[in-house]
């Protein structure tokens, strides 16, 4: 057997069980033990004999079951008003950052800073609006600022070998401070009425589209664009490649650093947009609490949807289903009258359960 340092290592999830595991690597901290209990194969408590189609369509099935369960418990669930409300809530919280997080996780990284960057977006939008800069600037400038923050993370991660968890943790801490500095007055109220309703306006007269709030339309467009980008463009394939086997991708001549920087920039950009929409909907910007724990929600969403934390496997559609599952789940909690604490408990159990059911590291 070749010594560790010389052996070209394929991604841990696909490693044959007799190769030694090298330390380090982007996904190592996030990777579970590939050989639990024995050096030669699986001894884990779950079974690997699940039907393949269950793994493919399991999350969609879970979503359907959840929707049925919720509509049974509460007959109002499937009404137009409620669906619109649920979708809007989803789109205004973690839908957009879920897309960015999915892209980052697909490269084998992780972005813990999205919540704080969202706060930067919301606070800068609030401050800009209050100083009379107009809607266009209030959308563009925060997004730009957040993209720069994301780019900073990406550059540090790509050019140094430091793990994404540490870098984005540091950026998260710093970005929270940036948000607090921007909104130095604390919770900031937005006075401009047009801006406040922006996220929830419908284009009334237009049929069908007129029924859907603007934020939902925007989110849908972004999901479609991201899905197209990931599945049908060269850059999208590069993202999968980097996540699947970074060394091989680098040796194949693909600019791995640029790909990594790109995904973090996109993540920051979308977090900024999410922040602006968030501020618009709430008509306030709270630098301390905006986006708090949103990063965990976005990771949960991506993971429940079936994307592997090691990168290289997953997709936007899966992430969408994961997000919808969480949304319906939260609606179920509220409809069933469970208090906040139970929601938290169930949230944790479900995320862990979803990952366990996927076979630990997701399907490759």
């Amino acid at each position, binding site marked *: 057997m070749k010594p*560790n340092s010389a052996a*070209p290592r394929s991604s841990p999830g696909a490693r044959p069980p007799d190769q*030694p*595991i*090298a*330390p*380090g*690597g*982007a996904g*190592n*901290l*996030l*990777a*579970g*033990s590939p050989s*639990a209990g*024995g*050096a030669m194969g699986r001894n*884990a*408590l*779950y079974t690997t004999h699940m039907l393949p189609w269950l793994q493919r369509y399991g999350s969609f099935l879970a979503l359907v079951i959840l929707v049925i369960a919720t509509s049974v418990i509460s007959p109002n669930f499937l009404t137009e008003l409620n669906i619109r409300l649920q979708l809007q809530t989803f789109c205004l919280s973690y839908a957009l950052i879920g897309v960015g997080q999915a892209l980052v996780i697909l490269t084998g990284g992780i972005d813990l800073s999205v919540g704080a960057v969202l706060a930067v977006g919301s606070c800068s939008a609030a401050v800009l609006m209050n100083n009379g800069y107009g809607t266009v600037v209030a959308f563009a400038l925060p997004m730009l600022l957040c993209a720069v923050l994301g780019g900073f993370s990406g550059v*540090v991660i790509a050019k*140094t*070998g*430091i*793990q994404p*968890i*540490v870098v984005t*943790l*540091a*950026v*998260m*801490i*710093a*970005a*929270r*401070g*940036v948000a*607090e*500095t921007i909104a*130095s007055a604390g919770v900031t109220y937005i006075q401009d009425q047009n801006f406040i309703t922006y996220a929830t306006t419908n284009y009334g007269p237009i049929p069908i589209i007129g029924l859907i709030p603007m934020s939902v339309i925007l989110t849908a467009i972004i999901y479609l664009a991201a899905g197209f980008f990931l599945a049908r463009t060269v850059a999208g394939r590069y993202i999968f490649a980097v996540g699947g086997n970074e*060394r091989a991708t680098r040796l194949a001549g693909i600019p791995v650093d640029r790909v990594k920087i790109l995904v973090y920039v996109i993540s920051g950009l979308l977090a900024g947009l999410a922040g602006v929409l968030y501020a618009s909907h709430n008509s306030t910007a709270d630098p301390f609490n905006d986006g708090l724990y949103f990063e*965990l929600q976005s990771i949960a969403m991506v993971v429940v949807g079936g994307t592997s934390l090691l990168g290289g496997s997953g997709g936007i559609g899966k992430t969408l289903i994961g997000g919808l599952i969480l949304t319906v789940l939260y609606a179920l909690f509220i409809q069933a009258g469970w*208090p*906040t*604490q*139970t*929601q*938290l*408990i169930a*949230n*944790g*159990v479900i*995320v*862990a359960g979803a*990952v*366990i059911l996927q*076979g*630990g*590291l997701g399907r490759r």
Partner: protein
Amino acid sequence: MRSQQQPSEPEHLRAATRVSPAARVLSLVQRETALIVLVLLVIMCSLLSPHFLTGNNIGNLADQMAVFGVLACGQMLPILSGGIDLSVGSVLALGAFFAAAMSSHGIFAAVVVALAATGIVGFVNGIGIAYTRVPPFIITLAMLSIARGLSLQFASMANNASTSGAGAAPVSVAPGSGFQNVAETPLPFLPWNIPSGALIAALVFVALAFVLRYTSFGRHVFAVGGNEAAAMLLGVRVHRVKIAVYTFSGMLAGLAGILYASRQVSAPPTAGVTYELDAIAAVAVGGTLLTGGVGTVRGTVVGLLIIQILPNIFNLLGLGSNWQQVARGVVLLAVVILQMVILPALSIGGIPMRRGPEARGPAPTTPAPGAT
């Protein structure tokens, strides 16, 4: 070169292995980066503010650091084994709750129950991590959520039992139980106002350093973190080590919760929110690699000091707390970059760059002659 009959190395070898003073210094700097940063920071702070090195301020610092210190110790074990524990903040709240709730039965009962309960939580973490292939990040993330929900639930149950319909309000420590003294009594034999909580934290540091260095369990933790398959093949009981590591992490988080409850004289169910991140930051700054297998308690102490001194000096100088946050993030990043990138890139010996082979291609592997 004639071979020489000497008990020591032949002369040509000695010439080849002579280390220049510059290389020695650089090697020292790389190994002790965090410590040097800390020393510089302390010097800078004492120059910036005359209040920095006063007994009062040191006492305050020690007080704040007691809780975080124990938490960072608890975080060190999972990180050394190659994992991570995101749930320590929520487990702290659970520990605080149990300590406060049982405080009317005396200090001993409170401590024992709190440690047992949080130990069980950590045990569940450990079981999940050891026996499924789910990454520790996800399991402890789920536990963060679960434990937070549990602490909210318990708090509201406790309040409903005593008063009617109080909801999730903080549970108060029973007055007169002496529980407050657990962390608050100033130590009589030191010139500064350092409370006993700091002594407890110091004892935890010493105990952890001893365990990591002189017990086989400690060696096994490093082995599992360094190369898990190799450890398994060597006969290390990886499962037991992992379960133990997360159980201890839970118990230490519980101890931190006990100290917290003792200081605050109450146990709000929202205690410890985001504390886990500070613990991870302290451990990372202190030189423990997040991939596991490398780290020292001394380094963690230094990292903790760096992370805690910053808010302290900002308060003393009257600077806004906003910039404090930014500075903390920047310092964390800077120290980590310094340790992991800049210094190893100078090709000095010392702590090797622990990046996987796919990260950079062939890395420079020429250690300085004579460097350890």
